[in-house]
């Protein structure tokens, strides 16, 4: 079952008097439960594609259908609802809210869903358990290491049990040990909860963990490779 369907997608940005084409005729399908990554050099359009899939941006031409919803046709409110309920985001710089504790950061997406305090607490503690940070629940982000911050970000993206997690360069700021740990955590969540993960990366370490690698160059898909699973 396709969770993402992209058809003839073009994204252009105004530059001076003309336009810069960031994505050019992208066609792509991502199935439910995939652990896939978009790779490519800087400026190849990875983040732009991820942003469109995450309904943070809209295509100039073509269509992106995410969880049966056409991104171009969503209102601001509908897009916000899609992100809040079904899509989790993980950023390169973690984007944790500095004045909130780990618990509150993870709880944040649930506050927008009007869940009761007990439901929120249960879900947050479970998410922190998935990433092994239960003991840091009361800490503030500035008291955590980079790896721990990224694990909080994973917990935050997973707490609402989304169908899709979009991770933009999640290991770019981490050392190899932390990167490995983070990727193992995400892989485990993918396997156990069936959540679809889509990465944008140019990190070799990430690529080794991916089941599918989509290569972008100058805004075009140049290679789409599915790895065979070795037991």
């Amino acid at each position: 079952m396709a969770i993402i369907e992209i058809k003839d997608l073009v994204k252009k940005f105004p530059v001076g008097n003309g336009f810069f084409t960031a994505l050019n005729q992208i066609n792509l399908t991502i199935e439910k439960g995939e652990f896939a990554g978009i790779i490519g050099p800087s400026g190849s359009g990875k983040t732009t594609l991820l942003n469109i899939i995450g309904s943070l941006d809209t295509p100039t031409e073509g269509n992106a259908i995410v969880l049966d919803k056409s991104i171009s046709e969503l209102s601001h409110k509908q897009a916000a609802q899609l992100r809040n309920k079904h899509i989790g985001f993980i950023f390169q710089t973690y984007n944790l809210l500095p004045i909130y504790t780990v618990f509150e950061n993870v709880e944040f997406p649930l506050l927008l869903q009007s869940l009761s305090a007990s439901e929120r607490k249960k879900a947050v503690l479970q998410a922190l358990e998935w990433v092994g940070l239960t003991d840091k629940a009361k800490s503030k982000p500035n008291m955590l290491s980079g790896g721990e911050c990224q694990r909080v970000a994973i917990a935050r993206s997973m707490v609402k049990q989304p169908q899709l997690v979009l991770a933009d360069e999640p290991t770019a700021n981490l050392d190899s040990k932390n990167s490995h740990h983070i990727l193992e955590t995400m892989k485990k969540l993918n396997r156990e909860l069936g959540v679809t993960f889509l990465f944008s990366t140019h990190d070799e370490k990430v690529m080794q963990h991916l089941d599918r690698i989509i290569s972008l160059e100058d805004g075009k898909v140049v290679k789409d490779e599915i790895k065979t699973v070795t037991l």
Partner: protein
Amino acid sequence: MLALQLAFKNLIGAGLRTWLNVTVLSFAFVLMVFYNGMIDGWNRQGRNDTQAWEIGQGQYWEHTYDRYDPYTIQDAHQPISDEANDMIIKGELTPVLISQATIYPQGRVQSVILKGIDPNQTILELPTADLRNTQNGYSAIIGERMANDSKLKVGDNILVRWRDKNGMFDAMEIQIASIFKCDVPSVDKGQMYISLEVLRKMTNMQNEATMLIAGKNSELGPVEDWDFKTSDFLLAEFDAIIKSKKAGGMIMSGLLLVIALLAIFDTQVLSIFRRQKEIGTYIALGMTRGQVVGIFTVEGGAHSILAAILGAAYGIPLFLWLNSVGIPMGKENTDMGIAISEIIYPYYSFGMLLSSFILVVISATIVSYMPARKISKMKPTDALKGKLQ
């Protein structure tokens, strides 16, 4: 509710920056309440004093009398009707006869208004009973201001010259029976109070009066041949002065409020610029732009709530203390020409506190909303990168 919860959390989390803004805003709030309280206290005291010493619950004037036109005094007198007389006997009204005169204190010439009033009246606070105490029959009471201006003391005899009903000049010596202290200058400056019957004899105006002053128990209504003037009419000038004083005070506290609001505006602009990533994150996590604008607006507006709490923390003890000791106005101010005590006891009404609070909250919210509107035009992808200039 969520916006309020998040806004307060962000605000407290911002630390010193928040407390600086809150402190300045609380100064504006406390100053506004202080000044309004002082003016309201003055207003209450001034109105009460003016009613107690001069105008009673209202006055009935002879048709031609105009308190601002001294030329009307000569002819502004008429016999008291039976209806009015009945009310005087019941103690509901007290008659006052007014005449112009000249006194010669220590060889100088000074114009005065002679007011004839019943020594037994109880409607006004004037110590008219003192008019009964003199040995030789012709006595007057005057206020401290009049005593200072004319250098008169209790027991002094002063030559008074006046015109009677027919325009004939006459003169005699009057003894100062007592000097009273009063906060209403128009009761005191240039005025001499003598017995009504004495003045009637002096001016050949038997059973006549210029005005009738109504007491607390009077049934205020039309009285034949007399024009009724309500206390509101009689206090109109005082009200106008209070209004202008209030406006002056509003300018002062308004200036301080503007400074505080500018600080909040500045903080909001900086905050929105500095917290672009946070804004992008909120949107990525599923907030609508409207909700984010709401958080930032409430956050700015919440400065005013904290300012009210902080202001209350030091303002309430300050105001309670001022309420017990009063605010000294200095002797010079009591000669301003309108009723003002040497000490004013401020009055803080719930309505005044509420309106000051609402004014501060609304203005803080408006200045917070203005920069927060920019968020609704932000592209979340640019905000996440912190790219906006």
